[in-house]
């Protein structure tokens, strides 16, 4: 039997505690079964098993079945940490193209974990490894990407490696790269393809000249950064420069302004709230997926809610807030967990509210349409039960669920919340504070504290911690998850 019986009766508790010795062994056996369906199920379950980290990197090497391997990579993505990256790096040397590609795609999704290895890999003796590294970084959301690529075209001696870097640089072409580009032609005088590639990138930098005429100077960047920070709490550090400049320049063009100065004047006007909203939409990072850090959802249905209802009278309202909701995967995951795994749901009146400062993501929340990828950690039976597959292969969450969550627009730093949202019992505030500086983090957490009921909980993202922000909360460890509780009195 697979580890999980996804049904109310036999859901086992906590992610790492869910497998006892025997079941774990079964899982490992299943992972080696001759039946691909069995192996695939085992690969899924291993994402939640404490053996997963050890076993998956090994069995994925042997797997031949494409779909099973894909599932294994999804599960690896779920479990990956710095130590595992070290173990997966040798896949870049594999002769098995499918395996290598799986690793490349996985690395592309973990910029922070992959970045420390880039310099080393780009200095590897094997030119193929250098090329595969470029394949990873050209799709990596990391501010170092242009500088890494420039390093390659400056120093690498291998034509094919330089060719790959030039191809990747085309997306980042800027006038200040012209010197380095011309140097490539000199270094590789007898390589017509590289000359062609250099010319192609150069033509892109020229197309960028119009942009550069309105070029974002350091002080302009700073004035934008300060305005954006004041209104959203999000602080762009110097290392987000490329990301920010690119989007700003795009908005300057699309709104028909001639220079940053013109545009900035316009954005600051009160009447330009709409443009500021668009800027907010393009500048925010909305990455999320269903059942992300599922330990929190389990902690909710197995412990936090029980603690909360212990202090309530029957029928009283329980309020759960997902902020930021992004495209809705988090609040809908809360709803799914309540429906499936909290047997007391019928005795209580639960309200789920969710908010974000990005209007585009809120529209998507209301539509409730998701890619298969966003649903990768939702067990199939639940997908079948709560989602309808659309003709284009996407999935729409059912109407009852869409109605069960109230979405609204707003910044967590906006005092207006004090009126709109009150008496909350659980706040999911995950993967937001990382974009803030210490001042806005403190302000946000103070706000949340004020809006919580006594005994209520706050959950932060797995990379975030309360310790440097506030000492007002009591820390509770539920299974492997940390949650922060407001005192009862």
């Amino acid at each position, binding site marked *: 039997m697979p580890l999980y019986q996804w049904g109310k009766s036999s859901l086992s508790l906590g992610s790492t505690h869910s497998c006892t010795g025997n079941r774990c062994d079964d899982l490992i056996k299943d992972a080696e079964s001759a039946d691909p369906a069995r192996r695939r199920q085992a690969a899924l379950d291993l994402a939640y098993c404490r053996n997963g980290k050890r076993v998956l990197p090994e069995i994925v090497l042997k797997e031949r079945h494409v779909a099973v391997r894909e599932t294994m990579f999804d599960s690896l993505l779920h479990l990956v940490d710095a130590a595992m990256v070290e173990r997966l790096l040798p896949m870049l040397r594999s*002769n098995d*193209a*499918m395996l290598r*590609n799986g690793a*490349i*795609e996985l690395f592309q999704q973990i910029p922070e974990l992959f970045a420390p290895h880039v310099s080393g890999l780009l200095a590897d003796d094997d*030119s*193929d490894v250098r*090329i595969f590294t470029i*394949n990873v970084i050209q799709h990596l959301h990391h501010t170092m990407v242009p500088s890494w690529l420039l390093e390659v075209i400056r120093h690498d001696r291998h*034509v*094919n490696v330089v*060719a*790959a870097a*030039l*191809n990747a640089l*085309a997306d980042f072409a800027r006038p200040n790269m012209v010197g380095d580009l011309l140097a490539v032609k000199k270094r590789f005088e007898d*390589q*017509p*393809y*590289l000359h*062609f*590639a250099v010319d*192609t*990138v150069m033509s892109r930098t020229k197309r960028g000249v119009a942009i550069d005429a309105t070029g974002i100077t350091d002080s302009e960047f700073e004035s934008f950064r300060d305005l954006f920070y004041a209104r959203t709490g999000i602080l762009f550090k110097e290392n987000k420069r490329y990301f920010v400049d690119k989007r700003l320049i795009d908005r300057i063009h699309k709104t028909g302004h001639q220079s940053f100065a013109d545009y900035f004047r316009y954005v600051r006007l009160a009447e330009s709230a709409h443009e500021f909203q668009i800027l907010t939409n393009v500048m925010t990072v909305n990455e999320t997926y269903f059942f992300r850090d599922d330990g929190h959802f389990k902690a909710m249905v197995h412990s936090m809610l029980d603690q909360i209802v212990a202090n309530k009278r029957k029928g009283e309202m329980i309020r759960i807030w997902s902020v930021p909701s992004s495209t809705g995967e988090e609040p809908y995951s809360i709803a799914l967990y309540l429906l499936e795994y909290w047997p007391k749901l019928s005795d209580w009146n639960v309200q789920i509210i969710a908010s974000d400062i990005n209007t585009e993501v809120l529209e998507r929340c209301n539509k409730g349409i998701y890619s298969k990828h966003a649903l990768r950690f939702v067990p199939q039976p639940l997908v079948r039960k709560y989602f309808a597959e659309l003709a284009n292969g996407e999935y729409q969450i059912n109407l009852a669920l869409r109605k069960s969550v109230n979405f609204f627009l707003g910044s967590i730093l906006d005092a207006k919340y004090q009126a709109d949202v009150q008496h909350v019992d659980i706040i999911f505030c995950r993967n937001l504070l990382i974009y803030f500086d210490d001042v806005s983090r403190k302000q946000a957490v103070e706000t949340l504290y004020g809006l919580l009921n006594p005994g209520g909980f706050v959950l932060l993202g797995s990379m975030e911690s309360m310790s440097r922000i506030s000492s007002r909360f009591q820390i509770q460890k539920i299974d492997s998850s940390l949650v922060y509780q407001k005192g009862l009195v």
Partner: protein
Amino acid sequence: MTAKIMIVDDEMMIRKYYVMLLESKGYTTLEAANGYEALEKILIDPCDVLMVDINMPKMDGLTMVKEIRSRDGFHHLPVIMISAEEGDADKDSAFEHGVSIYLQKPVKADLLLQSVAQLLIK
């Protein structure tokens, strides 16, 4: 009728380069950025020669050739496989997959044109 060459490579710049070379000799070209795209396009719009990069994301070159070869009407399609990798491992498996000509990157312009011409005569 001019011959039609399909170029499959994930690197946009390389495709543009081959397109430039081939069109300068009067060939018609068709591009795809990966194996899936190539499969879709080729079924609607067959070509006379297929040029494939061996190393591509999603579906690698060899898998793609195997896929295409298994379809009716494509058993004998001439294929040029291109690889940046050194050593003969790729080369051997390419020939096992029925690849007609194997070229090493960076591909010299005259060699490329010569290979295409040679396959079209056959």
